[in-house]
Structure formats: C-alpha cells, structure tokens
C-alpha cells in the first residue's frame, strides 16, 4: 500500500523534510498509520508546517493522494474513517474561500476544530511514548516462574543416538531373569474320612471323647476343620451325639454306635 504522488522519495515518519507544501514528492505507507489524524499529523510535522497556520489546499491534496490508492485494499470501516477526514478537509478548504468579515477571529477560523483535534491527538502520542518507555522498562524485570519447568517427557522426544549393533550389545548385557519361584500349595494333610475313623477307633476305648482331642495334638486349622466335618457327618448319620454345656465350654462327642450301646452311661434314646 504505497502511494506515490510525484517523483519517488521515501519519507520516514519522524524525519522533517522541506517545508514547502504541494510540490513535494511523497511515499506514504498507509499501513503504518493508526488513522486519518495520524496521517494528517505526519504530513504536517514531516514538512515543518506551522500547525496553527495549515495551508489547507496543499495538505488536502497530499492527503487525498496518500489515501487514493490505499483505499482499494482497505477494510470498509477504515476506509470510511479516512474518507470522512478527506471530506472535512475539503469542507474547510471551501469555507476558507468564502467571503469573510474584515477581521477574522481565531474562533471563526474553520481550521480551529481540526487543529484542536490534531494537537489533542499529538498530546496523546506523547503519552504513548511515556507508556512505551514504561512498558519496556517493566519488561526487563522478571517474576518467579519466568523460566518454564523442564518438561518431563523430554527424554521420550530425544532422537535415538544408537546403532543397531550398540542396541543389541546392550541387550546382551541384560541379566537372565531368575527362574520363577514355584509355590506349591500345602498338600492336604488330613481328610474327613481319616478323622471319622479316628473317632471310631477312640470310641472303642471310651464312650465319650473331648472334641479337642481329635485335633489337639496337630493343632492346625486343617485338622480342626476335618475333625468338625467328621463329627458333623457322624452326627448326621446318628453315630454320635454332640454336647456342649454352655457357650465356649468344652465340646464332647458321645458314641451312639450299636456295639457300644450297652456300655453307654446316661443314654437317652
């Protein structure tokens, strides 16, 4: 978006050039300007024009030339802003050509409002420079957390710096895993049948036996379980009677086997 009015000569924004208006060659990049006020101010300041005595005709010509080509590429809203300024410039120029009273007050100068806006805009450009300096200065101070923590997954993203031979060589250095430990469940040491025959054998010597005797000497859970199962099984088959005087009192087994019936003490058939 470069506009050339006459011979090509580049003008940078802040560098003042010849104070002659109208016949000046211009290169203006519209992109660099915030808006019409910015552009107008540039045209005035770059040529050392007295802002209180703006030669409106010359400036209007330059302004129109500057926006002329750029307008096509501009967004509608932005183009409208530049065109609005162009319109007011032309209006001011026309007003200046009208016949006027002998003595012209500054207040009646059609340029007054434009000058006020330009000066106000320039005033805020100074504030912008103050803010810019403050921002740059603040940018040189860093708070905790400025440097990001190292990403954990960094190692995974590293490219492999190994040859295949090196990889295989490293693989051979991995020790053989130790043979798995085989855990064999403890074999069943006693069966319900064994306990039943034990009960029968004991009944050959006595008519009643303490339940604890059936597993007491072995003391394992398996023996206790087998003994209980055997006792219950024989009770079911009417071969024994189980008695316990009170909760947690010793349990007794009484024989109900036929061959022992005659010697049973306190039989309650």
């Amino acid at each position, binding site marked *: 978006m470069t506009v050339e009015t006459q011979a090509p000569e580049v003008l940078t924004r802040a560098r003042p050039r010849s104070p002659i208006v*109208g016949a000046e060659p211009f290169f203006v990049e519209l992109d660099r300007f*915030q*808006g*019409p*006020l910015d552009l107008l101010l540039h045209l005035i300041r770059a040529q050392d024009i*007295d*802002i*209180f*005595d*703006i*030669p*409106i*005709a*010359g400036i209007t010509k330059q302004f129109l030339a500057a926006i002329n080509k750029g307008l096509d590429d501009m967004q509608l*809203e*932005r183009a409208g*802003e530049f065109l609005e*300024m162009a319109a007011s410039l032309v209006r001011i*120029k026309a007003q*200046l*050509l009208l016949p*006027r009273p002998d*003595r*012209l*007050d*500054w*207040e009646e*100068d059609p*340029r*007054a409002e434009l*000058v*006020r*806006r330009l*000066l*106000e*805009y*320039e*005033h*805020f*450009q*100074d*504030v*912008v420079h*103050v*803010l*810019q300096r*403050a*921002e740059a*200065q*603040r*940018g*040189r*101070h*860093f*708070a*905790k*957390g*400025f*440097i*990001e923590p190292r990403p954990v997954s960094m190692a995974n993203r590293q490219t492999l710096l190994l040859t295949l031979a090196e990889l295989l060589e490293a693989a051979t250095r991995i020790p053989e895993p130790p043979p798995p430990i085989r855990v064999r469940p403890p074999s069943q040491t006693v069966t319900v049948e064994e306990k039943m025959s034990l009960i029968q054998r004991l009944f050959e010597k006595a008519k009643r036996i303490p339940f604890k005797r059936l597993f007491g000497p072995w003391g394992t859970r398996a023996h206790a379980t087998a003994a209980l199962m055997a006792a219950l099984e024989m009770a079911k088959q009417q071969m024994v009677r189980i008695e316990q005087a009170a909760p947690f009192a010793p349990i007794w087994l009484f024989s109900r086997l036929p061959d022992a019936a005659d010697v049973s003490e306190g039989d309650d058939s």
Partner: protein
Amino acid sequence: MTPQQIVEATLFASQTPLTVAEIARADGDLSAEAVRQAIAELREAYEAEERAFQIYELGDGFQVLTRPEFAPYLERFDSVPRAPYLSAAALETLAIVVYRQPIGRIEVEEVRGVGASSVLRTLVDWELIEVVGRGEGLGRPLLYGTTTRFLDHFGMKGLSELPPPEELPVVLAELQEAFDLGAAGEAHPAEPGSPETAPADDAVEVE
C-alpha cells in the same frame, strides 16, 4: 521466625504482586505496619547484598522481581509467560483512557479519529482496563478506567507516576494555547496575524 523472614517467604512464594493486607494474613501477629517495615528492611538488605532481585511496588502490591540488568541473561530463555508488548492501537487507546477516565467508547474514538470498540474489548480481556460505570448519555454508555494490572504492566506504583498533563512536552502547551484562544474568542494581540495570512496563501494555491 522474624516478621522479616515471614514476609520474605510470602513474597518469595508468590508469582503475583501481594498487597500488605495479603502478606499480613501469613501470621496472626503480623500487623500491616510490621509488613511495611519488613519490606523496607528486606529492600535495604537486598540492596546491600547486591542480590539479583529486589522487591518492587506494582499497583497496590509488592512482588519480588529480577533487577533490570539481568534481563539480557533471562531473555535467552524461550518462555515468556508475561503479557507481550502492546500494539500501537492498544497503547494509543490506553493513553487516552488513563488520562480521561472514566471515559466512554465514543470519546475515545473522537480523540483517535478511528473506531475503538475492538481494541477496547481486547484491553478489557487483558484486564488492563475495566468497566467502571455507565455514562449519562444516550443508551447509558459503558465507561472505562484502568486497572491494577495496568499499573503492573507498566511497572507503576500508581497513576501519580505518570507525568501530569501540564508536564508533557511542548505539544501540550500549544494545545493549552489553542484552547485558550478558542475559549476566549478574543483576538490576542500577538495572534491575529497567523489566521489571516493563511487563507490568503490558500487562495493563491487554488487559483
């Protein structure tokens, strides 16, 4: 544990500025006055020991930041978790808001000569400005003002750190003059020359 150490631990652990009241919450016995004193002592100690950091006052809070001379070293790291530098449009809008607050969108646009709705929205998103009220005019327009984050972004304690309008360079003097001329409506003895010569020049140009 001295109050100074507690304040130091609190400031060290924080990634954002902390107010005196916030720091004082660290310990029941810590008064605002003690916090202020501890900060002053710590600042002196850091200065004397030439530490790479210092406690800075940003808005109404305090924060431990590196000294500016270490920026070249830190800038070698890629990470930039702070706000990037603002665009020309954003700075221009902020300049107007900070001196004219509370101010509505229309007034900002009048000064800039261009639309300002999107840049205002962006500045609100970045929490550099906020809606501080509603104007009296048609549709009760939103009025904007600057925030604490604004002060943080520009490294200021308060708005008083900005130059007062009358201390801004020559341009403002010219502006004041123009206002006086416009408002008085009377020809100043020294001035009448310039407005009168100008139209003459123009006429020559046109013809």
